[in-house]
């Protein structure tokens, strides 16, 4: 069974400031997320499997572990805007232009309130733009976004391996102990499913939730800086 304390989402946090990384990491942990932190856009792209090798302008940069390709599911990227060499906006663009990662929601943080900057990021596909200092309440707003990707990923899994699923349940994976208001998300899921799922399947969604869900694929990730 699922433990109440088990993190549901994996977030990649990007910030060049150690101070800000420490803060966002703690905030995310407090919001029950698994966190990986990196200190640059380049390292973020490496982690996502979108770039090989070493950061271009940094002679001292050491490529940490070999690039991890899609074994690690990232449910959200949260990045600072103002970073040397690659800004949060640049990172956002790279992510949204990649076929592998374009569905990962991206959130931008900034300590400056520049409306033009905010609208540019949102236009480029950022899910949210947070002004620092970021608070726990801000992060809780992100759960629906992360849930969407998780459900999409799990749907793809189900489609690829239909024999695994017993009662034909389609990816309705809301943990009863979830911090997200389960009813709301549940209703969203049911509404999504209405378009594609027959009445029979809907019944099984209502009946059997946690027993058929697949385990998250990213257990044991440690924070990388």
């Amino acid at each position, binding site marked *: 069974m699922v433990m109440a304390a088990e993190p549901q989402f994996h977030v990649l946090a990007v910030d060049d*400031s*150690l*101070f*800000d990384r*420490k*803060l966002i990491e*703690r*905030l995310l*942990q*407090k919001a029950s997320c698994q966190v990986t932190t990196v200190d640059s856009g380049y390292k973020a792209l490496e982690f996502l499997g979108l770039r090989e090798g070493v950061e271009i302008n940094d002679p001292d940069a050491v490529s940490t572990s070999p690039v991890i390709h899609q074994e690690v599911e990232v449910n959200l990227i949260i990045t600072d805007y*103002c970073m040397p060499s690659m800004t949060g906006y640049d990172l956002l663009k790279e992510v949204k232009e990649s076929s592998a990662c374009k569905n990962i929601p991206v959130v931008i943080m900034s*300590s*400056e309130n520049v409306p033009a900057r905010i609208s540019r990021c949102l236009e480029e596909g950022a899910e949210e733009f947070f002004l*620092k*200092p970021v*608070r*726990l309440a801000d992060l809780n707003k992100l759960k629906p976004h992360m849930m969407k990707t998780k459900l999409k990923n799990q749907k793809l899994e189900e489609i690829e391996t239909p024999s695994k699923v017993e009662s034909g349940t389609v990816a309705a994976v809301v943990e009863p102990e979830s911090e997200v208001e389960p009813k709301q998300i549940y209703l969203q899921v049911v509404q999504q499913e209405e378009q594609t799922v027959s009445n029979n399947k809907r019944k099984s969604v209502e009946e059997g939730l946690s027993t058929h869900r697949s385990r998250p694929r990213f257990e044991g990730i440690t924070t990388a800086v």
Partner: protein
Amino acid sequence: MLGFGVDRLQADINRLLTSLFHQGVLDEQFLQLQQLQDETSPTFVYDVINIYFDESEKLLRSLRLLLMDREFSDYKKIGLHLNQLVGSSSSIGARRVRNVCVAFRSASELNNRPGCLRGLEIVEHEYHYLKNMMHELFQLEQQRLLAAGVRYPM
């Protein structure tokens, strides 16, 4: 007898915090920070504020070096440093430090060198005041933990 030390120290801590809030040295973002501390991260506030001190002092040193240079002209760099200071000070709830950094930043945007020098002085002053207060707070917390540790349940 054992309980008295803890209560007195807690009262001292509360009094100090109240005073700092009253003076506007700290704002409620500091409380947000405290809420992030728990059994899984019991020294979070202490850790993150120490990182803040390290980073801020580096920035202040750099600012002083820049402004002391007779041929100084890089106001943009000053602005960048101050953006960082404004951001991190806001994040720990250091309201007064943040505000004087914003004022300093305005002077740099006007390329006003004497204004910048004055701004730096004020920021250094506020920063050191904050640092001393935080050290006092941490000391009281430390003592309180020790006093609380003496009480063993029988």
